């Protein structure tokens, strides 16, 4: 209850702020379109359920058994041990015989009242889905939070640095760097094994070396750009499996002993989550990195940068105070849109690391053919995504007054 109240309070404050800065018309227009998309998305997910057992042969079997021909989702969810009464009750409960609109209205009504249905029909004790969400959501939420922190911690400094380097005259790597690099790799491979050294080598040296050989000059920028490109092209599951092999199987630095909440101590908590968060963060980082770099390079061309330079401001001050500021706005929007990517990543990463979050619950529900729970989850994630983006969209106009003047498309 308290959580709901806090969320409502935050939304109310935000709404008031947006109405004050952007005006009623804009706020209503945005909210209206968000609401329309929200209803359409949830309706579509509810409609998709009707495609379960749409084949005539399956319907024939159900009819011969004396059940409703739309009962397939219930039969899948309840499993082979179910009685006819149970299936019939489930069909009634879910409104499978009704037309799509009545069925949707029933579902939406239930959800709005806070009744999400059972997490697993088959388990017998029928634990409510809300309980499962309450138990597992914090884990995924922490995973998201840490991964975003890691992604930004990687992307922002590298992005600023490479945007700055992009405009500087070409400079080769000093000759001394090569023996130092080789020595460092030897030490790493001697102390921690060759696989870790190989991972670092692949991530850092190969792109740098290739680009130095081929392009010459502006090495910093091109190397960072290439690193972003490599990270962008590694599928999340390949990256996850590689890091699991190196850090978990070979080194034993990360144990798959399961998630530890904050209550068990900060150290234990962080220890139980750092590798999945790192994988998710590294998967998200290149998007931020490339966008920030591109945005800053464009902003560095602006007249106000020349003015600031002419006034004698230091490069650091110009970069951090004058150029980073407008670029943060872009980063904010992208962070909102990137939630979808995070959800995709979380499903894969939680599977790899046996992390008991929402992603692995979803896969479990799919494997058990619990379509009702899956449908509700898909709809809820979509709703969260739309809400987050509407808020970001509005924040965007609050932070950057220029946007308010033009109609956003």
């Amino acid at each position, binding site marked *: 209850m308290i959580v709901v109240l806090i969320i409502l309070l935050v939304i109310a404050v935000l709404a008031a702020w947006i109405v004050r800065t952007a005006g009623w018309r804009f706020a209503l227009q945005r909210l209206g379109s968000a609401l329309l998309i929200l209803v359409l998305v949830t309706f579509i997910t509810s409609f998709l359920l009707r495609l*379960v057992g749409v084949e005539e042969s399956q319907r024939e079997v159900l009819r011969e058994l004396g059940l409703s021909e739309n009962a397939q989702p219930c039969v899948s969810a309840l499993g082979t041990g179910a009685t006819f009464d149970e299936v019939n009750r489930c069909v009634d409960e879910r409104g499978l015989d009704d037309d799509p609109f009545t069925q949707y209205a029933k579902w939406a009504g239930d959800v709005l009242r806070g009744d999400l249905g059972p997490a697993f029909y088959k388990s017998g004790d029928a634990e409510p889905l809300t309980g499962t969400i309450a138990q597992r959501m914090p884990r995924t939420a922490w995973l998201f939070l840490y991964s975003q922190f890691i992604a930004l911690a990687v992307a922002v400094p590298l992005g600023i640095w490479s945007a700055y380097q992009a405009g500087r005259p070409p400079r080769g790597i000093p000759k001394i760097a090569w023996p130092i690099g080789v020595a460092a790799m030897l030490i790493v491979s001697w102390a921690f094994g060759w696989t870790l050294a190989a991972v670092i080598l692949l991530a850092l040296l190969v792109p740098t070396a290739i680009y130095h050989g081929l392009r010459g000059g502006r090495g910093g920028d091109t190397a960072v750009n290439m690193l972003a490109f490599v990270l962008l092209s590694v*599928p999340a599951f390949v990256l996850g*499996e*590689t890091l699991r092999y190196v850090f978990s199987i070979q080194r034993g630095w990360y144990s798959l002993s399961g998630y530890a909440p904050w209550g068990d101590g900060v150290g234990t908590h962080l220890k139980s989550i750092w590798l999945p968060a790192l994988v998710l963060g590294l998967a998200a980082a290149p998007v931020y990195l490339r966008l920030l770099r591109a945005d800053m390079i464009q902003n560095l061309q602006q007249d106000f940068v020349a003015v600031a330079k002419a006034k004698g401001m230091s490069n650091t001050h110009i970069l951090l105070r004058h150029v980073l500021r407008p670029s943060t706005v872009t980063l904010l929007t992208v962070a909102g849109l990137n939630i979808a990517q995070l959800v995709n990543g979380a499903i894969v990463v939680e599977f790899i690391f046996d992390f008991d979050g929402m992603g692995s619950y979803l896969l479990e529900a799919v494997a058990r053919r619990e379509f009702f729970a899956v449908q509700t989850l898909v709809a809820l*994630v979509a709703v969260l995504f*739309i809400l987050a983006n509407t808020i970001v969209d509005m924040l965007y106009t609050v932070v950057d007054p220029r946007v308010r003047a033009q109609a956003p498309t």
Partner: protein
Amino acid sequence: MTNVAPDMARASVAAAAITEAARPKRKVNWVFRFAVGWLALVVVICMLGELLPFVKDPNERDAQAISQGPSWDHWFGTASFGQDVFSRVVIGGRISLFVGFAVTVIGIALGGLLGLLAGFLRGWVDAVVRVIISVTLAIPALLLVIFIVAIQGQSLRTVIIAVSLLAIPALARIVRGSTLQVADRDFVKAAKVLGVKKLSILVREVLPNVMPTLVSFAFLTFGIVLVAESSLSFLGLSVEAPTITWGSIIGEGRIKFAETPHMVFLPGAVLFLTVLSLNFVGDQLLKRFDIKESGI
């Protein structure tokens, strides 16, 4: 399939226009040639498959060679029943590449059409297409694909349809934006004033100018679809068991990871290099086709 990817690619191209103006032009882009060469190599080997002398039967079991590392006989090592992993990668690549190709073609045909009509006709067509785009992009991609595949059963057809449902709106959004820009240029306005038919303007003036962007994004989409399909089969939710894909080989290798790391790393490297090449080619094409404002 993020909606962020195209924005990122566009922004990078705009930045490249600034940074590369100052740099000396290279005569030959070797990285581009490597990328195209790698793609051609992968496609040719996967298409020829069993016809090649070094590709064995991917399902042949060999009790003498179980979970062995890479060797001269088995380039990528062997799986837990002694199957040759290299042959599995070649045969599995066929399905992975076919899904990528089919989805890209469907996405370009339907998404391109939707985007073109929306951007050119504006009005209610645009409104409808925009709603379709926002609705589909509001559901995280992998989540929706998993849901559809779970409902419809794990067949090649379902996987292609499910992934296409994501590629279509993503490409429609890109094409719409590009069409809006082209439709605003002078030669299109001139054709309108001259009284040329709408269809004729669309086909002869707008389409050829949207095509370059579409081709560049086809490569980027191919890469994204390849990753999406591989993730799906890695999770065991793509085309069912006896059929091999790149993702399923990796998913199989991870079970006894300490014994068969080569089953994860080598197919993973092939997948990574292919996606990297596709991304690079797409990015370079986008850069090459980028219309400079000053050039108009």
